[in-house]
């Protein structure tokens, strides 16, 4: 770090972001060539979303971590409140789409609050964990259990409202993030081990219960039949003959036929791939740019995650709050990338989870950019601290 450079220029993060934006626009441009998307101007809209996102990133830089830390509980509360408002909103502004009430559907604009709540929840989790660790410098078993409870409650509140939409996939993202936070919060292994064992045992028995007594499960735990079907499909894909495999088959066909080097721009052959610009954008990348291109995109995510790990590590001495923001954002990117890419190549079940930073969509782009703005601020603050120390 040299002095003649502004702290606000984090060239590595900027470069990574530009690469993601480039990949995103290129892939969406290609998806736009499909007949079902003809006449749509997704690329232009995505540019608008990214621009708005960059604006938000800049705004966030005006706040230091201390301010964000203090505000985090209110931000979290606001995030939860919006989820509640969504649930009680009338059909006119929150229409049911494909059986779930996950969107504010305003004329010309749809907002998915759960995307934003992910970031607000991460922020508050980071604050709660760092606050707890400041308070209990020497952790004990009871203090660890207390921390675990805090993490659990903070995550559970939004999950409850998201399950009411109902959106099982997004809830799982929250659970994953919470799990990662628990792991990194330094809670004693014994507790984590116990927790993992309990959760695993509970999960397995619930699963067995659902699979073997679907009707009883429907009555007692209120799981919807289609969710049961999805679970079963995942266990035995050959049984499924519904629309899910139709999407999956097409995705495999598109991605697979990209082979090593891909077909290049404007040369797609699997034209009827649904949701090509959103959830199945990775299939488009695979078809257009082949194994090399797709592997590079995965590498790009890997580098981004690596950078977040080092950022978290660096920040730990100065600001644990900053560290946990990084880890939370890392977890978010990781689970989305793995689930989304995994679904297009057949190792994960099909859910409506976008590929963050690449998929088309206002809510996911903006919320991810807010998250990005927070970690960017963490990086900026480290530079400021370092500068301060050298002075």
């Amino acid at each position, binding site marked *: 770090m040299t002095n003649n450079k502004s702290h606000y220029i984090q060239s590595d993060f900027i470069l990574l972001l530009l690469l993601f934006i480039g990949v995103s626009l290129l892939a969406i441009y290609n998806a736009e060539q499909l007949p079902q998307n003809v006449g749509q101007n997704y690329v232009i809209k995505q540019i608008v979303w990214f621009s708005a996102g960059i604006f938000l990133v800049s705004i966030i830089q005006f706040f230091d971590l201390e301010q964000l830390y203090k505000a985090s509980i209110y931000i979290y509360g606001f995030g939860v409140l919006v989820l509640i408002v969504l649930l009680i909103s009338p059909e006119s502004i929150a229409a049911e789409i494909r059986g779930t009430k996950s969107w504010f559907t305003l004329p010309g604009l749809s907002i998915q609050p759960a995307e934003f709540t992910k970031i607000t929840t991460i922020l508050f989790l980071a604050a709660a964990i760092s606050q707890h660790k400041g308070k209990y410098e*020497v952790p004990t078993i009871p203090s660890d259990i207390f921390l675990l409870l805090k993490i659990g409650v903070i995550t559970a509140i939004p999950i409850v409202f998201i399950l009411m939409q109902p959106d099982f996939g997004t809830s799982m993202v929250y659970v994953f993030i919470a799990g990662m936070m628990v792991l990194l919060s330094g809670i004693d292994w014994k507790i984590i081990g116990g927790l993992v064992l309990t959760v695993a045992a509970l999960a397995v028995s619930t699963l067995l219960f659902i699979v073997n007594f679907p009707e009883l499960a429907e009555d007692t735990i209120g799981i*919807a039949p289609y969710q049961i079907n999805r679970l079963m499909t995942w266990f035995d894909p050959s049984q499924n003959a519904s629309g899910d495999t*139709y999407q999956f088959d097409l995705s495999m066909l598109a991605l697979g036929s990209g082979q*090593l080097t891909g077909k290049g721009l404007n040369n797609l052959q699997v*034209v009827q791939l649904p949701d090509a610009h959103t959830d199945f954008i990775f299939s488009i990348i*695979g078809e257009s740019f082949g194994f090399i291109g797709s592997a590079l995109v995965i590498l790009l995510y890997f580098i981004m995650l690596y950078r977040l790990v080092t950022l978290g590590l660096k920040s730990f001495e100065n600001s644990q709050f900053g560290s946990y923001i990084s880890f939370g954002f890392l977890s978010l990117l*990781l689970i989305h990338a793995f689930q989304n890419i995994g679904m297009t190549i057949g190792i994960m079940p099909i859910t409506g989870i976008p590929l963050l930073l690449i998929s088309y969509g206002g809510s996911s782009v903006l919320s991810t950019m807010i998250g990005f703005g927070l970690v960017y601020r963490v990086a900026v603050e480290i530079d400021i601290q370092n500068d301060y120390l050298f002075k």
Partner: protein
Amino acid sequence: MVEKKKKKKKAQLPFRLNILFFIVFLMFSVLIVQLGVVQILNGEDFQKEIDRTIKDTTKIPVPRGKMYDRNYNVIVDNAPLYAITYTPPKGVQAKDRLDVAVKLSEFISMKDEDGEFINRITDRDKKDYWYLLNEEEAKSRITVEEAAEMDSGEEYSTIMSRITDEEISNFTEEELEVIHIKKELDKAFSLTPQIVKNVNVTPEEYAKVAEHLDELPGINATTDWDRDFPYGDTLQNLIGKITDQSEGILADNEDYYLTRGYSRNDRVGRSGLELQYEELLRGRKEQIQYTTKKGKVIDSETVVEGKSGKDLVLTVDMELQKQVDEILREELKTAIEKHPQGNRYMDDALAVMMNPKTGEILAISGQRYDRKENDFKNVSFRTIYDAHQPGSVVKGATILAGYESGVIKPGSSFRDSPIRIGGDEPKGSWTTGLGVLNDYGALRRSSNVYMFYVALKMGGENRYPFPNGETARFNPDAFREMRNYFAQLGLGVKTGIDYPNEATGVKGTLLKAGLLMDYAIGQYDTFTTLQLAQYVSTIANDGYRVRPRLLKEVREPDSTGLGSIYQSVNAESLNRVDMDQSLVERVQEGFRQVFQTQGGTAYSYFKDKEYNPAGKTGTAEYEFTDEDGNMVYTLNLTLVGYAPFDDPEVAFAVVVPKTGRGVSQQHPINNVIGTRILDAYFELKEQRAGNNQDDETEETDEESDQNNDE
């Protein structure tokens, strides 16, 4: 202790981060490996599957050929109907059709002017719709266990049965429109155009749909057609019908159509001329080959250019046809109204007019009186399908048979007195006191006895006068011989008309002397009106039997009017009778005397006619059992003839079956009709000639063409 723990705490994070990072690395490795499997290992297979192309050919119907009369007036036209069609691409899902239906409902209405839906929808259609809107909810209506035991069809119908009436009862008008449209879309086969709406499509709807075709995959705005008859009922029954789209090709002849490139829902001629000339009228369908890869049409190529069906020019003169129809109807009406009791069984009047030299049918008319509905119907086809005992009109054939078999010679005479064979009733002529008659006289006065002697002699009984009460010698071969001579004139055989399923009449199976005598006066075998017309034409045409026909020319289709000639149909002589020209001329002279000489049976009707007609009257006793089981005795009144005598241009046959016995003398409807239709023909000719002279300078090709015929 505290120190130690602090160290532990510091060491904790990097260690756990390593674990985290290891997990990340592991997860990404899994992604990369699987990506390699999908893209590198199996990539080629996926590409192959994509490259697998399917070629399909779609046939697009073209308008059917029109029909003109001999003066190029349009008889059958195509009335265009705006139509909205749907040609589904391959692999279209119900949801896609729903999207199309929703979009289409913005542009078209499935209701008629009264606000009622044109078609009906069932609850099932509503449930299908509900299912698509609430798929997950619908799927939840069956348990996983149930689903496991059912195939997808059972599963679907079970779900259907669990959708409540309430759920499908509250659709809005807009939704109902969508359901109606979707029902039509669902009927379509892949790549085959299906009509969504072709009734009451307003120009506005047509324009709206045409403008938004790009948003409506598979939808097209086209013009379909319907047969239109500018002359209304006239001749329509002879022209026949075509099937509609839901009937498609004729089921009993499926292979015939399918091997000729028809689609199952093609509209084809079902009867009459539409059936007869299907090959010409159908045209050539445009064939477009679609190349499909993985369900997506990537290329379309017109393999065969479409071409409208050929236009037919018929031999019929529609003006004359209308008049003949009118004459038959009037006379039938008059006869029935005048003698409602006497003519209570009378229902048909049939007439055919043709050019004896070319076989061109100028008018072909049948009128049937429907007593229940007190209504007259056009039944031209009955002149081809219905056979009746014609009575004495066949005597020309009997005379010729006598000449040719050698049993009589020109000028041979017989006394007209009743003949009684064995214990049978004596058989005589229609009146007594005809005296001795030669061949001319026999025709002029319509002597039965003269014909009886011809029949007896042909059977080997040569006694003259025949000793009444004795048994007649009879060789049954005489039947074959006499029928053979009749056949040369067109009686008892197919006339060869270009019309499907022509009838030849019924031949009696018993072969006795008395029956051959009946045959000789037209009271045994039955003949169609058309056969009688061909018979008299053959006599008029010096013994050349010409095939009667309804088709004059075939023209290339032309949207602006009459197209160029594709094919002209020429007169076709089927055979020349065995008899010498001079013998045929004797019969001609006999026929002339019937119409033009004192004592001729139709003299009073034709004596003053300038057009120099010849012909023969006929009356046949026709007995049948009525609905109540009573024997009814009626007369078939007939007339054949031609004019002018020296250069015949029109020949005709008139048959009026089942006239009342007692009243036929008071109202000889056959002669009245014969006179009137010949008058009509020559008046029309004169009128047209007059017109031509008036504006000779404006004479068109078509008119001169017509003159050449005459």
